[in-house]
């Protein structure tokens, strides 16, 4: 009986070491094979995911990117997918290192992923740290980085994107409110403002108005009501107003 407990302990320790990167690797391998991917390709992807998991990096973005690459196989060669995944791992490592430098320990996976994305879209390490520093908690930091990255992708310069997110957090805005900013930016553009004007307004402390404020919004882009499904967004949009 004593020996049985020893064996169980060893099995348990092995299992703990194997989780969770190994589980994610097995999962993505199974998904790729199910979608018709060759075993060699699936094994290569699984190895990358497993190694990332062993480094305590988030594996979910890698799994999603691998499935995306396979879905686009008609125009993306398998070798290109593997290269992209390896590059993604490097960005995740960079994101994690920045988060650790910013004082986060442990670093939640979503923060690492958001930091990696921000770096991938051109944000410097210092800028990433600045956004993290303005957030009151790791989850808010992840949302702030995602929104700042999206604003930059929309054409807003990095300094203004970081400023508007940081100011919002410092004024006590909740992360979900910050998620409205890309829609707000689009709304301002629909009103005829250009990015330079918007950036100038932000840098002067003007912030971004709510996307549901009067006059905001483009065509056909509001959440629609579908019979049998209620959307929180529709209920709130008429009553919501005001900027920050």
């Amino acid at each position, binding site marked *: 009986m004593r020996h049985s407990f020893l064996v*169980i302990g060893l099995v348990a320790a092995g*299992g703990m070491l194997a989780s969770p990167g190994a589980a994610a690797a097995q999962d993505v391998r199974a998904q790729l094979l199910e979608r018709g991917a060759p075993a060699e390709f699936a094994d290569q992807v699984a190895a990358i995911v497993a190694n990332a998991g062993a480094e305590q990096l988030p*594996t979910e973005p890698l799994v999603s990117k691998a499935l995306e690459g*396979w879905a*686009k196989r008609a125009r993306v060669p398998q070798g290109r997918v593997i290269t992209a995944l390896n590059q993604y791992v490097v960005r995740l490592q960079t994101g994690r290192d920045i988060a650790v430098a910013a004082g986060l320990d442990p670093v*939640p996976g*979503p923060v690492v992923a958001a930091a990696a994305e921000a770096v991938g879209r051109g944000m410097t390490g210092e800028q990433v740290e600045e956004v993290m520093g303005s957030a009151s908690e790791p989850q808010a930091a992840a949302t702030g980085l995602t929104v700042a990255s999206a604003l930059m992708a929309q054409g807003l310069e990095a300094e203004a994107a970081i400023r508007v997110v940081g100011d919002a957090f410092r004024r006590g805005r909740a992360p979900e409110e910050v998620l409205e900013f890309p829609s707000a930016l689009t709304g301002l553009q629909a009103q005829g403002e250009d990015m330079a004007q918007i950036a100038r307004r932000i840098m002067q402390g003007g912030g971004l108005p709510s996307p549901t404020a009067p006059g905001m919004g483009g065509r056909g882009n509001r959440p*629609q009501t579908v019979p049998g499904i209620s959307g929180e967004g529709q209920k*709130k949009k008429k009553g919501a107003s005001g900027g920050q």
Partner: protein
Amino acid sequence: MSGKERLSPEAQGYLDGEPAGDIGPEDRQAADQFEQAVQAYAGRLQTPDASVDRAVMAAVRAEARGPRRQSVWQWLVSPHPYSVRPALVAAAAVALIVLGRLLIDIPGIEFGDRPAQLAPEAQATILVRFELRAPDADRVTLAGSFNEWSPEGVELVRNSATGMWTATVPLEPGQHEYLFVIDGSQWIPDPNAHAQVDDGFGQANSVIVVGPRGVVRS
């Protein structure tokens, strides 16, 4: 008598003590020779000395007391026979899986894969309308990070009069990357998305950021 010779049944019966009335002289001679050989062999056998008995019993008693005390290192490097109940191992495997999941959910221990948790209000699913003008298309679907990039995931509905394809999709608040797939092969970005970003494969993905109140696009 050589080893290959066999005694007749009559000779064997004679040796077994049966009456010797029916046995012939040859068989009787063979039986007598065999008996003499056996007695000669038995005479050469020696009874073991009493010291052998003592040595054997000493070894048996020592075995009964168990092995000598080993050091930890000796225990680690020496082979050990194990007997394991399969049901117990299966139960341990199940317990391991449960333990692993519990550890992942314990606050303060991060395994890195959980999505960002927003406030309950923000977690509500938001209905987002996607539309694309493609009058010549026979089929348009939507593939993105929200459906694991399955081109078969979301099918758009065509308005024959306008050539506009539309779909309303429930999405969680946050950022989503996606593309339209025309006729199962042509991947194109959404011109009304918040932005177009590098997909890492040398192409572009469309991006929308869904807030708790919905999405405003151009």
